[in-house]
Each structure stands twice: as structure tokens, then as C-alpha cells.
């Protein structure tokens, strides 16, 4: 029986005001209630055996859970502290604890928002009326969301691993919704292997941790001495286990395929939320130690930089809309790790500006990425419905047919490029200020090199997202399906509007975003308010709001003047200028592949495009010829796949001993026993 054990009964507001009753409930209870609601959201549909209603009921459950959860997060940010609960379970691992602290809020805040949006979206995107797998999908979506909440709440190694596995496995069942497709099966298997390799590392990590402190319960923050002999091993295994889940290079290889082949709303949750659970794991593990080894900060910084540059370079070359978005998730995780790396380096160098800017940058980017990446993935679902393909090069001209999705997708694209006046800029601003301040103060400003790297990544992001937006939405339709594309229903656009509004508000009022994150930064970085204020004063938050508003006003004024002028002058319509060619067709347009061809050639070492050119025969009439172009991925396609194939080949020799003849198998057992007996004597 779970027994309630109030360790911190501090928050007492009972009977003050009816409106505050909700807040007076303990945040942990709220979060547990939300998790329970989400976990069971798919059950009514299964029990009633009426999938259409089941899906709707599930959406109501999840939205209710989201509201409860967000209230809990806000009350936590407002200063209340969650109680710690203790589960007395019959398992031999000691009592399991559950609690919530300010670090958790960073992850829970986008989690509940996105889960609510996704559940509403799924009603129209994966309708139970048409899709037989909808019931299963709804069920696992609930498990998935609840498991992520439990990951954040768990304060006990075994409980954490249980939640982690439920999360990883429900993600597997979600992404293999279209089991018939061989591609889905393939990426599902890769995902399963990758996630369990990671879990294996986590098993090792928690066992070592137990060896060091004698219990599976998480040690209190900063309580573990770095002098523990296995400290470095614990950190390395955590980096492998959690880094793999976060999509940190070189453990990212499962990510593009898995995110591309999952249903779009599942991709939104996997990319916007599940990757962050890996980030959470690393942050939590690092918080156990009183000090961190010197190399760790630089290692994280290096891995983050590598992921950011390679992720966006891979994204730039993609032809598949969702694979492109997935690769850009690797980039964004890289940016988050750059922030964490700066903070850890700052800890070593006793540079508060690096700690504060790094943590702010990372935490703000975690929230931001949850918003805009979910928005873009939900948008990709709308596009797939409209055009019936994921190929960027087969779309085009969809802005005319999708007047709502088009501006929403544009907002998401601008935000993910980190351009003002949207929210993506705010997180990067902190990283830049940290890096440049390091460039000014530090005797050897290595961390300052982050600024040019971020600039390069930003430039590549602009290439990638100009390509995706320009080729998909603008120009003339490149296929019949794209020409007949249609706008989505309101159930699909409304969640996107909410997410886009979040991006806009957070971009225009960065102070708001900083307010949300400050408690977590203070808690995690163990910093006092004046220390934080000293650094955040250097970051132009209020002037940024002013400049952003000025920008919008200027756009409106100049735009209005232009439109008024346009009305007075003669206007005519014509064909696009084709340099004198009288009959241009839609197929002559620049495609996404041609758009990124130049940069792909420059970054050939990373993207490694695989071209197969046709042999041209000068016969008349010329025969059909085919040009084949795929963007390969170094780690998976060049290293892991050949390696696994080689290993498979080697093991095929072993199969000779496994021939299906039972009496020989019994002989094996006898022989083994004989050997063992001889061994012991």
C-alpha cells in the first residue's frame, strides 16, 4: 500500500479562497492524478468497444490531465513544494520514493501542453472511424505520456527504470502503428535495439550507484562525492544511456527513421518530449555529485556541438519532410547540450556567467523546442493528409490551399531557425551572451567558440527551413495530389494555433519565459537570486521586447503603405518570368533537392549523398533513364549496418551447432556438466 509520507508539509492555504483550493492541493498529488488520468485514458475505449467514442473520451481525459498537470507545475513555480511519496512495494529493492522538484518543472511544462494538443489532434489525424489501430494507439499514447510523467517523478532507480521501459516500449508500439510496412518494421527494430542498448547502460549505471551508496534511492542533490571511485563510470554510462535516448551524436542513428515513420502526432511527442527525458536523465545524474570531473563539461560541449552541426547538415540534405524534422531535432538537442556543457564548464572555471547563461539557454530551449517542434510535426501530419506523401519534392503550392496551416508552419520554421521575433531566439540569445562574455573575460576563451558555431548552425537552419517552407508551400504544385491538397479540420488546426501562439508570446515577451525558468536555474545551479540577476541583466530581455514590437509595427506600417500604394496603381497578373521560355511547367521548378544541393556538396563529408546517374544512350527516341539520389547517414548506414551484417555472418557459423537434433542437444548439456564438474574439482 502506498503510504503518504509528508516530508515537507509546508504549503497550507486551506479555507483562504475557493479559487485557490486547487492550488492548495499538493503538486505531487496533482501530477500523480494527471499521470493516472493519462494512463487510463485509452481504457474506456477498449472496454466499451466503441473506438470512436473511446478516442473522444481519451482526449477529454488527457486534456483534463493536462490542465491539472499545468496547475501543479505553476503552483510549483509559484513556490509551493511537492510532498514526497513512498511506495511500500513487495519488490526487494527497498522503498520507492516519488517526488517533484523545480528541475522537473522544465520538462513537465511543455509535456502537459503538448500532450493535450496531441490528444485533440489525434481525433482528426488518426480517426478511429478509418484506422483500426486507433484504439491501440490511444491506449499507448496514454501510457507513453503517463510514463514520461513518472520518469520525472521517480526518485528510485528501479521505479525510474520501470517508468523508463514503459515509456520506451509504448513508444515502440506507437511508432509501429503501421505494421504492414517493411520500412516501419525495420526502423522499429532499430529503435528497439537502440533503446535497449541504452537501458543496458542505465542498468549498469543504477547498479553502480547502488554499489556506491547502498540503496536504489536517488541520493540528495550534491550529496555524492566525486571521489567515489566509480563516479566517472556512472557519468559515462549515464551519458550513453540517456544520450542515446536524447539523440545525442553518435547515438542518434535510430532517431531519423523512427520519427519519420511514426504517425505524425506520435513523432511530435517523441521529438518534442521523449528526447528531453534523456536530457532530464543526464541533468538528474549530474545533480547527484558534489563536483563534476573537469573533462565532463568539455565532453558535453563537444558532443553538443557535433550533434548541432551534423544534425542540421543532415537535415539540410533530406528529401523526406519528417526525416528532415527529425534530423533537426538532433540539432536542437545539440543546442541544449551546448547549454548544459557551458554550464558545467562554467562550474569548473568558477564562471557564474557561463553557468547562468548555459542553464538558461538549455532550459529555455527545452521548452521552446517542445513548442515549435511539436507544431512542425503536427503541421507535417496535416501536409501528409493533404498531399498524400512525405516527399518534399512532390509537394508545392500548398499555401493557397492551406491558408491556416501555411502561416502556422511559417511561425514554426522561423522559431526553429532562432529568428526574432519568435521564441527560438531567446534561448540562443542566452548561449550567445554566455559565449561572448567568455570571449571578453576568460584568459583562454575556448567557450567563446560556441558563438561562431551557433552562427553556422543558425545559417544552416535557415537553409533547411527556407527549403522546407518554400518548396512545400510556395510555387506551383509538383504533383496531382499536391494540387488537390486541402486544409485540415479544426480539431487539427486548433492545437497548432495554440502551439504557434505559445511561440509568438514567448518570443514577444521573453521576460515571461525567463520567469518560468528562473526557479529551475536557481535550484539546479544552486544560485542565489542576486547572482542570477547579475547575469540576466546583461541579457537584453526588455529591449528585445521593445525591438520586436518595433519590428512588428514597422512591418505593419510599411506593409499598409505598400498595399495602399498598390491599390492606387495598375496591377496585372502574368506568368512567372521564365527567361523567355514561353511554356514553363511545374516540373521545371527548383526542387528541395536542388535547393540544398550546393550546401550538401559543401558538407559532403557529413551528409554523404549517394547518387546513381543513368547511362545516357543517344538512341532516338531515348530510352527511359533513372537518376537515383539518397542522403545516407554515416553512423547507421556506413558503420552500424555493415558491422551488424558482419556480426550476423560470423554468427551464422555458430548456427551449425544448432541443428534441431534433440539427442545431440542433450549431449551438449551432459558435456557442459562434465566440464563444470571438472572445473570445480
Amino acid at each position: 500500500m502506498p503510504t503518504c509520507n509528508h516530508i515537507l508539509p509546508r504549503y497550507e492555504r486551506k479555507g483562504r479562497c475557493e479559487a485557490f483550493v486547487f492550488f492548495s492541493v499538493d503538486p505531487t498529488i496533482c501530477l500523480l492524478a494527471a499521470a493516472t488520468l493519462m494512463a487510463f485514458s485509452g481504457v474506456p475505449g477498449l472496454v466499451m468497444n466503441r473506438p470512436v467514442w473511446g478516442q473522444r473520451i481519451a482526449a477529454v481525459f488527457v486534456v483534463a490531465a493536462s490542465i491539472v498537470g499545468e496547475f501543479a507545475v505553476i503552483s510549483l513555480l509559484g513556490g509551493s513544494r511537492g510532498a514526497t511519496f513512498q511506495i511500500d512495494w513487495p519488490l526487494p529493492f527497498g522503498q520507492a520514493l516519488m517526488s517533484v522538484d523545480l528541475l522537473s518543472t522544465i520538462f513537465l511544462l511543455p509535456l502537459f501542453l503538448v500532450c493535450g494538443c496531441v490528444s485533440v489532434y489525434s481525433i482528426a489525424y488518426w480517426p478511429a472511424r478509418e484506422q483500426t489501430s486507433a484504439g491501440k494507439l490511444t491506449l499507448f499514447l496514454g501510457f507513453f505520456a503517463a510514463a514520461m510523467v513518472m520518469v520525472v517523478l521517480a526518485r528510485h532507480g528501479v521505479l525510474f527504470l520501470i517508468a523508463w521501459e514503459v515509456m520506451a516500449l509504448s513508444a515502440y508500439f506507437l511508432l509501429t502503428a503501421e505494421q504492414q510496412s517493411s520500412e516501419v518494421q525495420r526502423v522499429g527494430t532499430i529503435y528497439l535495439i537502440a533503446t535497449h542498448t541504452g537501458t543496458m547502460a542505465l542498468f549498469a549505471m543504477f547498479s553502480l550507484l547502488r554499489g556506491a551508496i547502498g540503496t536504489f534511492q536517488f541520493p540528495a542533490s550534491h550529496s555524492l562525492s566525486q571521489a567515489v571511485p566509480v563516479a566517472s563510470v556512472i557519468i559515462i554510462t549515464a551519458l550513453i544511456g540517456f544520450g542515446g535516448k536524447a539523440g545525442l551524436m553518435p547515438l542518434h542513428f535510430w532517431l531519423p527513421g523512427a520519427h519519420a515513420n511514426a504517425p505524425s502526432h506520435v513523432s511530435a511527442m517523441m521529438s518534442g518530449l521523449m528526447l528531453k527525458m534523456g536530457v532530464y536523465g543526464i541533468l538528474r545524474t549530474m545533480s547527484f555529485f558534489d563536483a563534476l570531473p573537469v573533462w565532463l563539461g568539455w565532453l558535453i560541449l563537444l558532443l553538443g556541438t557535433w550533434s548541432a552541426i551534423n544534425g542540421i547538415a543532415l537535415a539540410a540534405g533530406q528529401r523526406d519532410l519528417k526525416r528532415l524534422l527529425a534530423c533537426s531535432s538532433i540539432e536542437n538537442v545539440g543546442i541544449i547540450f551546448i547549454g548544459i556543457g557551458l554550464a558545467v564548464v562554467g562550474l569548473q572555471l568558477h564562471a557564474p556567467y557561463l553557468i547562468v547563461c548555459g542553464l538558461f539557454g538549455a532550459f529555455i530551449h527545452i521548452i521552446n523546442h517542445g513548442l515549435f517542434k511539436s507544431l512542425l510535426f503536427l503541421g507535417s501530419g496535416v501536409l501528409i493528409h493533404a498531399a498524400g506523401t512525405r516527399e518534399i519534392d512532390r509537394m508545392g503550392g500548398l499555401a493557397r490551399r492551406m491558408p491556416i496551416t501555411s502561416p502556422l508552419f511559417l511561425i514554426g520554421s522561423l522559431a526553429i531557425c532562432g529568428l526574432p521575433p519568435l521564441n527560438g531566439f531567446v534561448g540562443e540569445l542566452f548561449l550567445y551572451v554566455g559565449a561572448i562574455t567568455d570571449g571578453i573575460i576568460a584568459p583562454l576563451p575556448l567557450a567563446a567558440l560556441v558563438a561562431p558555431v551557433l552562427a553556422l548552425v543558425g545559417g544552416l537552419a535557415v537553409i533547411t527551413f527556407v527549403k522546407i517552407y518554400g518548396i512545400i508551400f510556395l510555387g506551383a504544385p509538383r504533383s496531382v495530389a499536391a494540387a488537390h491538397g486541402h486544409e485540415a479540420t479544426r480539431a487539427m488546426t486548433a492545437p497548432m494555433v495554440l502551439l504557434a501562439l505559445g511561440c509568438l508570446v514567448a518570443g514577444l515577451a521573453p521576460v515571461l519565459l525567463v520567469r518560468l525558468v528562473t526557479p529551475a536555474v536557481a535550484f539546479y545551479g544552486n544560485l542565489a537570486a542576486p547572482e542570477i540577476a547579475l547575469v540576466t541583466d546583461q541579457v537584453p530581455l526588455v529591449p528585445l521586447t521593445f525591438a520586436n514590437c518595433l519590428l512588428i509595427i514597422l512591418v505593419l506600417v510599411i506593409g499598409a503603405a505598400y498595399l495602399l500604394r498598390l491599390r492606387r496603381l495598375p496591377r496585372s497578373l502574368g506568368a512567372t518570368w521564365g527567361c523567355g521560355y514561353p511554356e514553363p511547367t511545374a516540373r521545371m521548378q527548383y526542387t528541395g533537392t536542388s535547393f540544398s544541393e550546393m550546401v550538401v556538396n559543401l558538407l559532403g563529408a557529413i551528409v554523404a549523398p549517394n547518387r546513381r546517374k543513368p547511362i545516357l544512350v543517344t538512341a532516338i527516341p531515348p530510352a527511359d533513364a533513372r537518376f537515383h539520389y539518397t542522403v545516407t547517414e554515416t553512423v547507421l548506414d556506413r558503420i552500424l549496418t555493415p558491422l551488424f551484417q558482419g556480426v550476423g555472418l560470423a554468427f551464422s557459423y555458430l548456427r551449425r551447432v544448432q541443428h534441431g537434433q534433440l539427442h545431440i542437444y542433450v549431449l551438449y548439456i551432459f558435456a557442459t556438466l562434465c566440464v563444470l564438474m571438472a572445473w570445480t574439482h
Partner: protein
Amino acid sequence: MTDIIIHCAVALLFPPLLLGVIGKTKAAFAGRVGAPYFQPYYDLIKLFRKGSVFSETTTWVFRAGPVVTLSATLIACLLIPLGRHAAPISFSGDLILFAYLFGLSRFFTTIAALDTGSSFEGMGAAREVTFSCLAEPTLFFTLITLARMSKSITLSTILTHPTPATWFAAGASMLLLVGALFIILLAENCRIPFDDPNTHLELTMIHEVMVLDHSGPAFGIILYGAALKLFVLGAVFVNVALPIATGNALADWAIFIVAILALAVTIGIVESVMARLRLVRIPQLLVGATILSAFAMMLVLR
């Protein structure tokens, strides 16, 4: 207050003259009389009175492109100090906003180009984003180096900091910075050797080909925006390259205007004596500029 008014007046009215000066210089080299200095102004006035032709494939994005681009450049122009006077909008960390505003304007210019569905404009857009992406790290290396010298992350301080003394103390580093900045100035403004603004072959153009389908007032906005961008980046260059401050406000303004006109003449000379680079060489030159600026940073660390 007077400085702010002069700043706005100079920034708003002056830029097209730079194009006129460049044109006149090139004409002088070619032995022609050339168009009058004020020709760009006449062009602008004419364009704002002309009717427009819109391609049937275009959407609102095509109309929004020039507007957003000009707005972003105008804000950037308010962040930059001119003639040793602090900028009207100046705050700590404004250099990051400055760099990203160009990213925003690039985003909108290129999607407006893609909106026409023309393969030539797609080509121009692809080149523009690729080259600017390579130019971006250089700008940040330069700004970090200058920030380290001036111990500030405010553009107004960073760019008014260079004095003859800084040049004597860190001459090599400053020289490298000036070189890198000049390359960035030419690349970002699509001047020779990166792009020929007067070319007549769509296949070889970068900036001009992106705006082929714009006409009338929209093209006027684009032309003005391009002149403004040249002015803003030119002002950055002049601030770093010319470390003279007399202390007299009006004299400083005069020096600044003469200097930026001289810069226009220099650009005109470069355009007259050089040919366009082959497209494959452009990335090499841009990466070269990045390395130069990285060297400059390394030198100030000593």
C-alpha cells in the same frame, strides 16, 4: 537628441547615394560619363509610381517578403552607431539581434523568391542562403574580437571603441578584421567578386535573380532595402577601419559621411578591376575570411 535625428535622417536618406557613387566610379573606370549621382533616387521615385505585375503562382508571402526585409534592415540600422555617435537603440547584447535581423531578412527574401516557382529564382535563393551561412561565423568571430578589445557586448561601445591607439597596439589583428569585414561586406551585399549586380544572365546572378519577378513599388522597396543594407554593413566597416574621433559632433558626422563615400568609391574600384569569381570559388573565399577573423581573435588573446 540632435544626434538621433541626424542618425535617422542620414540612415534614411543617404543610402541610395552610395549606389550612385559606385555607379559613377565604375563609369569613370570604363571611360563613360555614367548616370548622375542621384540616379538611384530617380529610379526609386519612378518605381514607386509604377504599376505591378504579379505572377499567378504567388501568394501573400511574395508581397510580405520585401516589407519584412526592409523592416528588419531598418531595425538593424537603428542598432548601429554612425560617426562615433551611439546608436538610437543601444543595449547590452544588441550585436546578436543585429546579426539575426539579417537572418530574418534573408529568410523572407528567399521565400519570396521561391514563391514565384521560377527555377532561376530558386537557384538565386539557394546561393544566397548558402553563401550567407558561410559568412555568418566570420561576423561573429569579428564581433567577439572587437568585444574583447572593448570589453563590452554593446554594438555602440564595440564599434566606437577603435582608436589610433588600438590600431597601434593590435595592428595586425585589426588589419585582419578589416579584411574579413570587407569580404563580408562585399559578399552580403552581392557585389563583385561574389555577384555582379549588373549582370544580364539569370544563370549567374544571386541577388538580382531572386527579385526578377518583383515590380513597381515592391521592387522599389527591395532596391532601397539593398542600399540600406550596404549602408549598414558599410558603417560597421567604417567604424572599425577608421579610428578617428575629433570630439566635435558635427565634424564626426562629416568625417563619417566622407568615409562612407570613400568606401563606395573603393567598392566601385574593386568592381571595376576585378571579375566575378567562379561560383565554386566563392565558398573558398568565404571560409578564408572566417579563418582570417579567427586569426584576428587568436592574436588579441596573446
